[in-house]
């Protein structure tokens, strides 16, 4: 049986992974610098040439691809109450692998319309109201949208009572109606909206992103790259028929501009004395920290962690840290030499990126004294019992101190209210295969799962406690 080729069209790199599905062996991986402007096919050919120089010439039975090229899948959402339907819309979009550029709540204003026009999203997700609940807001927002010129598709996933009327208001545009993201108060129903987003991505975005040429050479499943990673992580956690998963997990992808966090865990209160507050969060939750990244967003890490901690962790003087940070925020393609100051700084930055991003992703616990004694109030997911942490991203793959950096994802005495894992095994995606495995899992889940268990465990399996 011929091997399968998995392609990840990134914004700067095209990555290819070849898998022998019969033997369940990773044949090789390679990447090549690309820009959409040049030609996405060229990047693919270069990456393939690199791959074949290692593996020898290969012929493929199928080529599957995911893409985050041209800025990824840009979305804007609008809901009613910020913590309720607007949050549900954000969760749905993030879960579908989108880059959420703006979340509006309550009624859209003329200024908001200006912003929408300027951003020109790939998809607009319009929600608001529980089924049978508020219709005023979503109808108003549909009318506001209809008053401007736009060419992006709109998904309506709000109060079903108002859905058809919204569709009529937006007649003449590409409109898709699907189930409410919050049909009943406090009930999250984001899968139908996620599915709709992925469908539109397939049908429309590919063309708009200059990927149609690439679409000719691939056999199928184009999805946003984060969506592929999400699939891989879900498979790794839950397992599939014929192969067991590794259980609840957190995955962290520290990039140059953003940091993505995935958690596969129920996360609801573990005992009766804990009261849960706020919207329940999905089992498969993804968050993106747009201000946390190793190069373009290095300032965000400094703002969150403070220069003192970065200086202490890196062992460099604050002034030296500042100097280097200034350098890397403008020369974003700098990669540290072994033993250099930059390597020390990157260690501190990656540690703080993980700590900040996981703390924002995880829930929090508050202690409250009531007349009945001490009570705990939980908001967000309780990840304390999660025992697996998977890390990926250049700064974690290249370093030998992965385990030390990744330990910052764990609970710490300095922030006891943050519900992060108490201890965990750290696994590294040293070959950058997560997205590829997500793609492979569509047709060969057992192979994808076995490969992940093998490849993720292979490098740097360690238990860390960070007390």
């Amino acid at each position, binding site marked *: 049986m011929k091997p399968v080729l998995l392609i990840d069209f990134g914004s700067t790199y095209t990555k290819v992974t070849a898998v022998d599905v019969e033997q369940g062996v990773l044949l090789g991986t390679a990447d090549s610098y690309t820009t959409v402007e040049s030609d996405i096919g060229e990047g693919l050919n270069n990456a393939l040439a690199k791959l074949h120089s290692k593996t020898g010439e290969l012929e493929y039975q199928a080529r599957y691809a995911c893409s985050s090229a041209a800025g990824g899948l840009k979305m804007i959402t609008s809901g009613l109450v910020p913590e309720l339907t607007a949050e549900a819309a954000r969760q749905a979009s993030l879960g579908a692998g989108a880059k959420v550029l703006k979340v509006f709540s309550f009624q859209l204003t003329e200024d908001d319309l200006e912003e929408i026009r300027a951003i020109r999203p790939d998809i607009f997700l319009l929600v608001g109201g*529980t089924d049978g609940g508020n219709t005023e807001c979503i109808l108003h927002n549909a009318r506001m949208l209809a008053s401007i010129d736009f060419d992006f598709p709109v998904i309506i996933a709000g109060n079903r009572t108002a859905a058809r009327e919204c569709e009529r208001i937006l007649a003449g545009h590409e409109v898709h109606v699907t189930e409410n993201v919050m049909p009943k108060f406090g009930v999250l129903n984001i899968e139908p909206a996620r599915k709709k987003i992925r469908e539109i991505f397939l049908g429309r975005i590919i063309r708009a992103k200059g990927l149609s040429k690439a679409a000719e050479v691939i056999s199928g499943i184009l999805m946003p790259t984060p969506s592929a990673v999400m699939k891989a992580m879900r498979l790794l956690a839950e397992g599939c028929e014929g192969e067991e998963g590794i259980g609840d997990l957190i995955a962290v992808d520290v990039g140059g501009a953003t940091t993505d966090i995935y958690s596969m865990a129920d996360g609801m209160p573990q005992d009766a004395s804990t009261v849960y507050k706020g919207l329940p969060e999905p089992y498969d939750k993804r968050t993106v920290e747009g201000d946390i990244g190793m190069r373009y967003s290095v300032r965000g890490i400094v703002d969150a962690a403070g220069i003192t901690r970065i200086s202490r962790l890196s062992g460099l003087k604050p002034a030296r840290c500042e100097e280097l940070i200034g350098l890397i925020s403008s020369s974003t393609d700098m990669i540290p030499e072994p033993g250099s100051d930059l390597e020390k700084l990157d260690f501190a930055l990656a540690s703080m990126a993980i700590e900040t991003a996981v703390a924002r992703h995880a829930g929090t616990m508050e202690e*409250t004294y009531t007349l009945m004694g001490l009570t705990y109030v939980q908001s967000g997911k309780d990840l304390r019992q999660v025992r697996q942490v998977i890390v990926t991203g250049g700064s974690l793959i290249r370093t030998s101190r992965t385990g030390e950096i990744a330990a910052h994802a764990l609970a710490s005495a300095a922030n006891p209210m943050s519900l992060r894992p108490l201890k965990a095994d750290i696994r590294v995606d040293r070959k950058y295969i997560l997205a590829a495995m997500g793609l492979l899992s569509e047709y060969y889940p057992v192979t994808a799962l076995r490969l992940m268990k093998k490849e993720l465990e292979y490098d740097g399996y360690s238990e860390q406690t960070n007390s």
Partner: protein
Amino acid sequence: MKKKVLVIGVIGADVHAVGNRILYHAFTEAGFEVINLGVMVSQEEYIAAAIESAADAIVVSSLYGQGELDCRGMREKCDEAGLKGIPLVVGGNIVIGKQKFEDVEKRFKAMGFDRAFPPGTTPETTIEALRELLGMEEEA
């Protein structure tokens, strides 16, 4: 005919869960659609739930004696949030100590609550009051 929607819950740092469950079942049985926020509910949570669900009334329970403090400013917040005129109902052990309930009721009415109920009120009494408040008497 569309069911009337009630948002219910126990306000403040109050964790009395039993009465809340009883009310949930009684109101549901009586034909209301009930959004139950459970215990330790803040004013903002009632209001957010009422906005999304276009609720017809908010029913606040308080069992631990701090109800008066917890309920202060709720009517004004509803007004701010665009829930002008939404019926607000409160009941339970809403104040501490031996006080004449007429005085207590007067104070809660001055705070903008439409009805206030003393300890020992049966669900039936509240349901009747809600039907009256929401103009449902003909169908009952």
